[in-house]
């Protein structure tokens, strides 16, 4: 009897959950641009994962020269033309997406957790010395634009993909501690938190089981929007020469290399540049859609 009852409960929650998802999807799909963004993102992600199998010239993503085909304009053979040493730009752009997506995912994976935890701790201990210390440290990291600090840090290290990601993560967490601080410091006065305090729940329980779940929607939305910004930052670092190094096909690196040959071989710059714009735009559109679904305004 008891088992059946529990099963029934479980089914009820599952149905409710599915309902939530369906309602979320309904809200999301009302915004056609967000759906378009999602489709573009799925295509880009699949293409990036399957790059070695689907690109016409997978060998061209590395150091490769074939001067016979150098500097050819776009054609059916080379959709985006070839660069100055004869590499297929279309293949390189698809491989470039691998770096971009990696940067976005790794930076957020490294940066969000510490930011969220600091925000939770300072927000819950609002008005005490913990808040003062935590938020002043955050302020220091926000005292210069993230691009400048990330550039300075990568410049002092050896420029490569790993260091680039570490540098961006190091300047990215403060935005999350700010956001979660704002959320947590208002949630801490809600009745359910007060109640948990009165029943003697531990601080850890209150922070992670009571407050954190209520911060997830804004954090998720911000993460989606930030994917675009972090990819932009990564491309920027590569463009300056402090990120993915040639002959690896970083999108920003390719724009910088191609720009030397403007205006003649315009395709070497324009296509990688458009590729950057498309992926950032797609993330922004999806992020906007999520913002509507979760009805969050703080981000």
């Amino acid at each position, binding site marked *: 009897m008891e088992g059946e009852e529990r099963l029934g409960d479980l089914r009820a929650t599952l149905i409710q959950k599915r309902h939530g998802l369906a309602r979320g999807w309904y809200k999301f799909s009302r915004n056609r641009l967000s759906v378009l963004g999602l489709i573009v993102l799925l295509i880009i992600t699949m293409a990036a994962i399957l790059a070695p199998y689907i690109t016409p010239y997978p060998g061209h993503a590395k150091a490769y020269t074939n001067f016979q085909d150098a500097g050819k304009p776009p054609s059916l053979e080379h959709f985006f033309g070839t660069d100055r040493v004869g590499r297929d730009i279309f293949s390189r752009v698809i491989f470039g997406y691998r770096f971009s997506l990696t940067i976005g995912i790794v930076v957020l994976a490294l940066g969000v957790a510490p930011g969220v935890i600091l925000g939770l701790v300072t927000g819950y201990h609002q008005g005490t010395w913990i808040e003062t210390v935590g938020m002043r440290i955050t302020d220091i990291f926000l005292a210069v634009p993230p691009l400048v600090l990330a550039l300075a840090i990568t*410049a002092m290290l050896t420029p490569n993909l790993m260091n680039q990601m570490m540098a961006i993560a190091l300047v990215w967490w403060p935005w999350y501690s700010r956001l979660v601080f704002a959320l947590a410091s208002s949630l801490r006065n809600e009745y359910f938190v007060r109640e948990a305090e009165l029943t003697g729940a531990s601080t850890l329980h209150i922070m992670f089981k009571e407050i954190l779940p209520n911060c997830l929607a804004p954090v998720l939305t911000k993460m989606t929007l930030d994917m675009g910004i972090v990819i932009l930052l990564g491309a920027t670092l590569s463009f300056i020469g402090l990120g993915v190094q040639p002959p690896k096909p970083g999108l920003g690196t390719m724009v910088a290399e191609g720009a030397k040959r403007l205006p003649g071989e315009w395709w070497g710059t324009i296509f990688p540049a458009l590729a950057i714009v498309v992926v950032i735009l797609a993330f922004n559109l999806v992020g906007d859609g999520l913002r509507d679904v979760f009805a969050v305004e703080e981000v």
Partner: protein
Amino acid sequence: MLVFIGKRLFQSLFVLFGLSILIFFIARVMPGDPARAALGHLATPEQVERMREEMHLNDPFPVQYYYWLRNLLHGDLGRSSYTRRPVTTDLAQYIPATFELILFATLISAIVGQLTGVLAGFFRNSWFDGASRLVSYLGIATPSFVVAILLLFIFSQVLKLAPGVGRLPLLMMPPPRITGFMTIDGLLAGRPDVTLTALKHMALPAISLAVIHIAQEGRITRTSIVENMQKDYITVHKVHGIRTSKLLFKYLLKPSIIPTVTVMGLDFAFLMSNAFLVEMVYMWPGFSRYAVTAMLNKDLNAIVAVVLVIGLTFALVNLLVDIIIMGLDPTVRLRRGGG
């Protein structure tokens, strides 16, 4: 009011102090020997050791920081290992060019951004609103180096409507340096042709910098215009038959401008970092290009100085923005003045 400004000044000082520790720490824990970097690879080990002693590199970190801070307060930021000149001399030479560009870009983005925002908000859901929405989406998603390259490619290289890179053509004699602002120096030297040419050269890089901020400020202004339009006092004015243009620019713009001014303060700092890219593309002999060169050459003293200068500018601009907002918004004035 004064109490508030004093408090803010103190906060800024604290943050700058923290920033200096942060960046100094990063510069010192990085692999590589600053003494070796300062002397070049031909120096003997004895010379390097003497240099390490001189630069206090053998002392513990807090002692090193103390010496560094003492020098900083005496206006000495060390010597650039790339240009071989004092960093302060370099900064003085390159900062005006960047500030001229950024001020010009701020002006463009403020005017165009406000105007599109006001019009898009007032004529909500019209074709203009739709078009400005589309452009702002694109503007936010396009890195400034892409904008810079595209504009240079289209307007300078293909259409030949604008001059190419640099502040002046190669053959044009620059006016004697007084302010460092090419447009003002041209006027001071009695050569308006120089000012005009300098403005033409500045147009493309300034627009490249402004695009993303036009997009953002336009959206924010639109939102606040839409909000304010629903308020009672606007309805009253409408009923009283006040002209649309007066309604728009006298009664709607002022309250709607406040969020935009806040954003503009933040924007100024972001303009400084985006200038890193635009100056690279347009070979603009400014502070940001100096910064990029320093970074690519691992010029530690210069990198630290660059970060501090940007942090200082950021702090000052934010303070200024707060003061402007107090002037614009009586409620803020009362709240902060009282508290």
